[in-house]
């Protein structure tokens, strides 16, 4: 009878848990590709996925001795990988929020981002200056979340019209949306 891929990994992990080091390379080989693929599907970022997959492999093998052969191997390994992906995501999120960590980013990258942001703001203001007064008011009120003279469906329609005109103006000035 031929073993399925899952059965094979279960059998190999059970042997590794028992201390059979001869299967180490084989287990590594069988798990590395699925872990990498799984992390990439979760994080959608190649470098982050590689980091998470490496971390997951380290944890899986560190806990290999605790693996219970009665439990399916792949869900066990993927649960560890999913945890590592979430941990990495949380770390990245905190880094973006923390100003000290933001200071660690390369100065060139931050300067470039600031320049792009400033150029876009200037371009948006120039395009807005071409709009009628009422449209400008509607868009500013929407952006600043302020109350306007209109409300409900009337406000929605005014906002849509103002955005259409802003888009047209932007396209005319810069040739893009």
């Amino acid at each position: 009878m031929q073993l399925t891929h899952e059965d094979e990994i279960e059998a190999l992990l059970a042997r590794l848990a028992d201390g059979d080091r001869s299967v180490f390379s084989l287990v590594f080989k069988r798990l590395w590709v699925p872990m990498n693929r799984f992390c990439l599907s979760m994080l959608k970022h190649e470098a982050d996925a590689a980091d998470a997959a490496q971390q997951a492999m380290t944890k899986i093998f560190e806990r290999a001795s605790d693996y219970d052969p009665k439990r399916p191997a792949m869900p066990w390994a993927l649960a560890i990988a999913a945890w590592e992906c979430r941990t990495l995501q949380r770390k990245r999120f905190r880094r973006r929020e923390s100003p000290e960590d933001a200071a660690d980013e390369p100065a060139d990258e931050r300067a470039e981002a600031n320049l792009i942001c400033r150029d876009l703001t200037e371009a948006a203001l120039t395009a807005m200056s071409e709009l009628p007064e009422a449209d400008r008011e509607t868009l500013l009120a929407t952006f600043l979340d302020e109350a306007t003279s209109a409300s409900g469906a009337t406000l929605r329609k005014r906002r849509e019209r103002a955005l259409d005109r802003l888009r047209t103006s932007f396209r005319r000035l810069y040739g893009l949306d």
Partner: protein
Amino acid sequence: MDSTEVANLKRRVRLHYELGRAKRALLGLAPVVVLAGPAAIFGRHPSATGAFGAAAFVVGAAMLWYGRDPQRAVLPGVLAGFVPLVLALCSSRMHGCVGTNCMMTCVPVCSVGGLVAGLAVASIGNQRRAGVVFWLSASTLALLTGAMGCACVGYSGVAGLAVGFAAGVVPGLLRRAFTHGAA
């Protein structure tokens, strides 16, 4: 990732695998430390008890870390050795007196405890149809655990334990050898 990076990762993962096993082994042998404490307090020779306790801990941890048959022999070995240990600790302050002559009961008690431990190891070894490595590992750990208590009258207690253990385990071992040979 290129092949060098994968090779580096593999080395790192292997190290973590071994470290994980070592951590688990040290935790798994914690009960031996718990046994060695009272044995050193109640025993007459705390240094000898401590030395046998340390040896039992190191050997047991190495067996758990290695895995396979030695790992499976840890629990039977420690449990079998627990019998002479407890018997020896209970008898370490008792005397058997006949008329005006008194003798310590430690040595005979250790021999009896060793016999029970040997029979227990032989029984489990035969039941599991275990290999030589299992028998050797379980016997070593049982003797070291028992010796923590049997050091009560110095090395004669340990010798008594070893003789009793051999008397208990050898028939079972021979039986195993013959049935294995016949099969």
